[in-house]
């Protein structure tokens, strides 16, 4: 019998998990379920739905943190922060449309569990750098907490990091605290329009690197090949007819103006340089964060590849030698999004082989459920890492009742 549990407070979460532990019934732990397409499908018929735990419990703008229950919709949190002109610096992306769902969905718990971050990752870190404390119920049916509400804290093991990106396999988070910061006064984007796509493939990396190592405090660096740029809603990009590299500058007005001018001068040797102001900049970086350019063609698979920045273009080159793919780069070249026709043994080996050579990892972010059931989604772990991963899981969830198999088969 399928039984779905929808607790409304943390005591009920505790009861739910204790019931599962007692009965040895695995739970499919989720918020709104918007990121279920990421990772492996859970081996369970019973859903533990946390969307009933929805409340911002402590938001203190002057202390630069926000605490909310795990099921709180992110859009509620954004609305609260917006009123105080604050934001989450790691710029959580909205993968709704990329994964075939609606926009503006998703909860705090889901965001933390999947450890995702937008283009400002290179400067402001990821969810793991911004989650400073949490409360949870372990797979042992016990409530526990770690961290706190202040940033500077080294009291005990930093379990917030471990929970972030664990896809709900270690404990059911009931509450999390995130760092917030004031939104930048001004945002500008310097665009480089490449004369030839071929040049861009070779040199975009050099352009992004030069920008990032300059003193102009570039907060994001992305590269859109011509085909991808044409899909942007920003007029300059969709009419460019060529590849475009984008560099983001944020800060007080006089500073952004100065840094933009300096950056344009630095990059003019690569192609025609142009500048976007706040409104268009925000539109562009949201598209890049959300990977909205690859949302169409849902039947095609999407890989997310994290490598050293200078390796991104090389990895892509190796893959394109034997496969057709749509590609975009973020994080100064270190994050590659790849949309590919199908995922078979050969194309999987091609992607993973290229990534391993460069040093990094590839995640199959979008694929059929059937495909995700095989152990293909995450980069495989070596035997020692498999051992430690299993022992960590066992320490938190010895009966394997929380999202079993969500990350790796048997874990």
């Amino acid at each position, binding site marked *: 019998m399928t039984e779905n549990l929808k607790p409304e407070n943390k005591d009920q979460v505790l009861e739910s998990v204790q019931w599962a*532990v007692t009965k040895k019934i695995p739970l499919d732990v989720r918020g709104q379920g918007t990121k279920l397409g990421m990772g492996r499908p859970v081996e369970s018929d019973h859903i533990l739905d946390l969307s009933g735990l929805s409340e911002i419990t402590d938001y203190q703008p002057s202390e630069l943190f926000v605490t909310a229950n795990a099921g709180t919709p992110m859009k509620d949190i954004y609305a609260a922060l917006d009123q105080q002109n604050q934001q989450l610096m790691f710029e959580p992306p909205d993968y709704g449309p990329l994964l075939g769902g609606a926009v503006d969905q998703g909860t705090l718990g889901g965001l933390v569990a999947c450890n995702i971050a937008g283009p400002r990752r290179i400067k402001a870190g990821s969810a793991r750098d911004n989650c400073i404390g949490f409360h949870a119920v372990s797979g042992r049916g*016990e409530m526990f907490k770690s961290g706190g509400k*202040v940033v500077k804290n080294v009291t005990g093991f930093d379990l917030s990091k471990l929970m972030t990106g664990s896809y709900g396999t270690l404990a059911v988070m009931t509450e999390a605290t995130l760092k917030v910061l004031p939104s930048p006064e001004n945002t500008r984007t310097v665009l480089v329009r490449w004369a030839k796509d071929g040049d861009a493939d070779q040199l975009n990396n050099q352009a992004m690197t030069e920008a990032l190592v300059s003193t102009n405090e570039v907060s994001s660096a992305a590269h859109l090949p011509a085909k991808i740029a044409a899909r942007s809603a920003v007029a300059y990009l969709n009419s460019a007819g060529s590849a475009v590299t984008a560099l983001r500058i944020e800060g*007080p007005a006089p500073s952004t103006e100065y840094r933009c001018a300096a950056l344009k001068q630095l990059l003019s040797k690569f192609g025609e340089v142009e500048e976007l102001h706040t409104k268009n900049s925000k539109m562009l970086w949201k598209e890049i964060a959300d990977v909205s350019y690859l949302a169409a063609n849902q039947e095609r698979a999407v890989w997310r590849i994290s490598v050293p920045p200078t390796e991104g273009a090389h990895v892509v080159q190796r893959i394109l030698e034997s496969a057709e793919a749509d590609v975009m780069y973020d994080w100064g070249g270190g994050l590659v999004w790849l949309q590919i026709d199908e995922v078979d043994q050969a194309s999987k080996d091609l992607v993973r082989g290229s990534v391993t050579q460069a040093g990094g990892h590839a995640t199959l972010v979008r694929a059929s459920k059937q495909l995700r059931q095989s152990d293909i989604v995450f980069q495989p772990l070596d035997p020692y890492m498999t051992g430690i991963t299993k022992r960590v899981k066992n320490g938190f969830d010895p009966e394997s009742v929380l999202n079993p198999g969500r990350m790796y088969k048997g874990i």
Partner: protein
Amino acid sequence: MLMPKPDEGTIAKRDEIIRAMQSIVSDEGVITNKEELRAYDCDGLMAYKQVPLIVILPESTAEVSKVLKYCFENDVKIVPRGSGTGLSGGALPLADGITLGLGKFNKVLDTDFKNRCVVTQPGVTNLAITQAVQHKGFYYAPDPSSQIACSIGGNIAENSGGVHSLKYGLTTNNVMGIEMVLMSGEVIRLGGKHLDSQGYDLLGVITGSEGLLGVITEVTVRILTAPETAKAVLLGFDTSEQAGDCVAAVIGAGIIPGGMEMMDTFAIQAAEEFVNAGYPLNVEALLIIELDGPEVEVEYLIEQVSKIAKNTGAVHAKISQSEEERLTFWSGRKAAFPAVGRLSPDYICMDGTIPRGKLSEVLREMNKLSKKYDLRVANVFHAGDGNLHPLILFDANNPGEFERAENFGSDILRLCVSVGGVLTGEHGVGIEKRDLMGEMFTEDDMKQQQRLKCAFDPNQLLNPGKVYPTLHRCAELGRMHVHKGIVKFPDLPRF
């Protein structure tokens, strides 16, 4: 401070252990002589001393792996040690344990400017990383005040902070990868030159784990382009409330300074007497706010900060007019500990974090405690992120005064927790705050943390007696307690 009772069996096997270590590590890398061992009997928390069983100084990952494997198989305890500058006793030796020093891991392996990172061995000092890259205009941002001596491996073990962590993050936000040896001798690599590890974020929990989870043998850290320019403004306030208001207003205005430090009257006077930094002596609170970045931004922000300072009641304001003057402003702050130390035979340095808004309340309470314990206290404070460093002055030659100072310190940390803060912001728990962990964590909280330790070190051989007040056996921690049969939950909504 009670440490676990030394195991007589291990001590009796000392010669056998020495021979085993000599077969793995070079001869001069095994220190057994009582005189030489004394050099390792404490770390930066010098009130506690213990001569280790022996000290070994391996030179390669393979050697560390063999040492740990031997200790794992023979039930010998290990205390990892970097430069020994830690302030919480995390590297305090054990009478029945080997102190494993990483001083010979002292090479920078790769400076990769295009990928903005450095690969280094863990014994390299924090400052040496910056020195290896500054000719190309780069630096390593986290800057604990011991940066000239402390090792990067130790920084990772403690998740060290520093003046710049407000803007540039703690060690944990700047470490990209490590190679580490587990207690079993297995070698694992986490992260690298790319962002985000695959699988569980073990790198995240190992950072700040105080040597309880493994021995780090290689490190990859992020480096940043050095800011074009930096300027500091020195502000004096009649009350600490006003200084606190100024800090809140600066952050409220969306400005995140490179550094924002506060000192109280006692600390100001001590520092001024010591280094003549030009501090105003008639104020209750001094703020040093540093802005860094492109020149036009720094000029613009200095103006904003000056306006805010005026509006919040600053009675003294001075902007650095040269790099030399900026460094002079900092000289007093950087010398604050020794400056206060000059005024007293002994002092202990505390390290709690509080919500910024609770500053004046905490200072008021601290002054009451100072009267109660009849001991002087000076305060220096990373005001931007709420990290307090009260320095408690005492004279160890007066019977009972050290205990009084420790109790005063404990009360300060309890105060920090009671206003919503934490026991330690950057120095670590070690042995110093171990017995206060219960102020912040429940028994279940601590047991869950210790279960993570069991995943890495099932026999609890790595740095036992540190961080957690009670040593539970892993078998006991792993046992499941069945909850009174079947649970009923009439209130739980189902659909």
